[in-house]
């Protein structure tokens, strides 16, 4: 049985996903069958990490049982087979986002992908790399642009790059509802802008940003466009070539894959012009005691033994998403997202963050509830078997902008039913009375 399916096995169904289909999908996810605090688990925290279908879990086991070996080295059959698995997985993931396989660099997660990028820019700034690397030099006078809604993973690496290089970090603000101030974007992004880094879909607000417009603004000023795809790649069709984005970071564990693997997409000519970040084995051509020459991308950025079994499993996850149909998943999650927002807005004291009912959003909703702290809401829901995320969701500046310290977030995926959403809403309706919150 091939670990990585070939594209010809992929067929996309056309009918919309409904609760009946989801009940079948759920059978593929063993963890969802369990009881939590004497209730059936209602998992509404896929925005933090998604659950895995059995096929993904088995792929990792199968790799260790049948194929485990170091890749890109050794002439024995097992090593050749493991290398095939590893590279076929890269092809599968590249295909999933419309990229070529030499444009996908494996990383531990999206955070590492974004750090790789910023440290490579730093290394170019320090004079490393080739003449081609000079385009990544960041210096005083240059500006790096992010947005006020970024996850810390797409904020702090850029802050640090600015500190290291003397560049200025600027941001596109959000309005009182959390929407990007696109009227300001055109001014914030200017001739001095070197990079514009922004999220495709907010992990707090659930909004889908005007990505094409931002990429066009960046390119018009000669800046690189960097997309955080953590909340989009798992949930929406994303085609890097159609978007013409320069870099894209995403994490495997948010898209039915295992933890420990993510990826950085970069246009081939850019990746091949960038100096490496992590250095060591497997990323070199010739090494002397004085220096080394480096492999082209993607291997240039993959020093040391890689996450091979995770790559194999991520390819199976991607196949699962494609077989189900990413467009169909997006439509189903939009349905669940609408149901969440409409239901929450009917509960007294609840303020839903981000776009209101009727505006496009992914299948998540974060909210504040008057008189009850998010941590207490989470505890109350957990008692009923409902798993949600509470806190600042790694977006402290955004919460501060919205006048909050913390919020509660319910986030769905293809395995959630409308009954999950309704059970959650029913529990939410009694939170304030349990805690004696005054109206």
């Amino acid at each position, binding site marked *: 049985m091939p670990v990585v399916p070939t594209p010809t096995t992929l067929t996309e169904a056309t009918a919309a996903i409904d609760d009946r289909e989801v009940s079948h999908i759920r059978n593929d996810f063993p963890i969802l069958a369990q009881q939590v*605090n*004497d209730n059936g688990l209602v998992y509404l925290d896929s925005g933090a990490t998604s659950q895995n279908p059995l096929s993904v879990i088995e792929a990792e086991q199968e790799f260790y049982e049948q194929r485990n070996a170091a890749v890109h080295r050794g002439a024995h059959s097992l090593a050749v087979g493991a290398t095939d698995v590893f590279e076929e997985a890269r092809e599968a993931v590249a295909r999933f986002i419309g990229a070529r396989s030499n444009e996908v660099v494996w990383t531990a997660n999206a955070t590492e992908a974004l750090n790789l990028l910023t440290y490579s820019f730093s290394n170019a700034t320090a004079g490393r790399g080739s003449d081609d690397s000079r385009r990544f030099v960041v210096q005083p006078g240059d500006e790096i642009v992010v947005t006020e809604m970024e996850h810390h993973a797409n904020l702090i690496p850029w802050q640090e790059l600015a500190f290291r290089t003397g560049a200025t970090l600027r941001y596109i603000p959000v309005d009182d509802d959390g929407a990007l101030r696109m009227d300001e974007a055109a001014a914030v992004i200017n001739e001095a802008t070197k990079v514009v880094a922004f999220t495709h879909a907010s992990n707090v607000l659930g909004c889908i940003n005007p990505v094409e417009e931002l990429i066009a603004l960046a390119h018009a000023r000669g800046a690189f466009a960097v997309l955080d795809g953590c909340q989009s790649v798992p949930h929406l069709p994303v085609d890097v070539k159609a978007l013409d984005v320069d870099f894209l970071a995403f994490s495997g564990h948010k898209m039915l894959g295992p933890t420990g693997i993510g990826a950085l997409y970069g246009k081939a000519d850019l990746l091949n012009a960038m100096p490496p970040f992590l250095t060591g084995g497997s990323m070199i051509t010739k090494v002397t005691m004085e220096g080394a020459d480096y492999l082209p991308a993607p291997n240039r950025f993959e020093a040391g033994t890689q996450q091979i079994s995770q790559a194999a499993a991520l390819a199976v996850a991607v196949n699962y998403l494609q077989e189900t149909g990413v467009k169909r998943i997006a439509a189903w999650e939009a349905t669940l997202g609408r149901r969440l927002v409409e239901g929450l807005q009917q509960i007294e004291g609840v303020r839903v963050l981000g776009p209101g009912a009727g505006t496009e959003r992914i299948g998540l909703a974060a909210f504040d509830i008057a008189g009850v702290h998010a941590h207490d809401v989470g*505890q109350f829901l957990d008692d009923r078997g409902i798993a949600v995320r*509470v806190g*600042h969701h790694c977006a402290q500046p955004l919460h501060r902008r919205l006048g909050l*310290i913390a919020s509660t977030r319910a986030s769905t995926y293809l395995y959630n039913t409308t009954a999950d959403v309704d059970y959650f809403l029913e529990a939410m309706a009694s939170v304030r009375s349990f*805690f004696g919150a005054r109206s």
Partner: protein
Amino acid sequence: MSGALEQLYQQIILDHSKLRHGEGLRPAPDGSVPGESHQYNPTCGDEITLRLARNGEQITAISWAGDGCSISMAAASVLTEIVDGGISEADLLSKVDNFRDVLRSRGTIEADEEVLGDAAAFSGVSRYPARVKCAMLSWVAAEEALLASR
């Protein structure tokens, strides 16, 4: 409802979380030595600034300002009740240790109401390891504030 939740959120805790004793930072009374500590829980963003006033070995006043969940706010309120009216430093430190032991016991140590007063109602928190930090936030602040006032 499983009943476990009511064990955690006892009425006494919910009451303290709303009618918070000692909330609002006040300057230490004249003639006393102030000690202050700011504690922050990065996982949830809860924070507290707590101020004690010392006269020799006696702690004579406490006040605090903070933002957090009902457990963290109620814990600061019951701590205020313990300090209000004066308590020796040694006595306060021993109560903090006792409170910590109860909270970390995973339900194996029952709190003694004679020692902890209303804080004994926090026994239920010990079954929720993720919430121990919430309850300890102000009590750790008191320990640090004591050190700062030395």
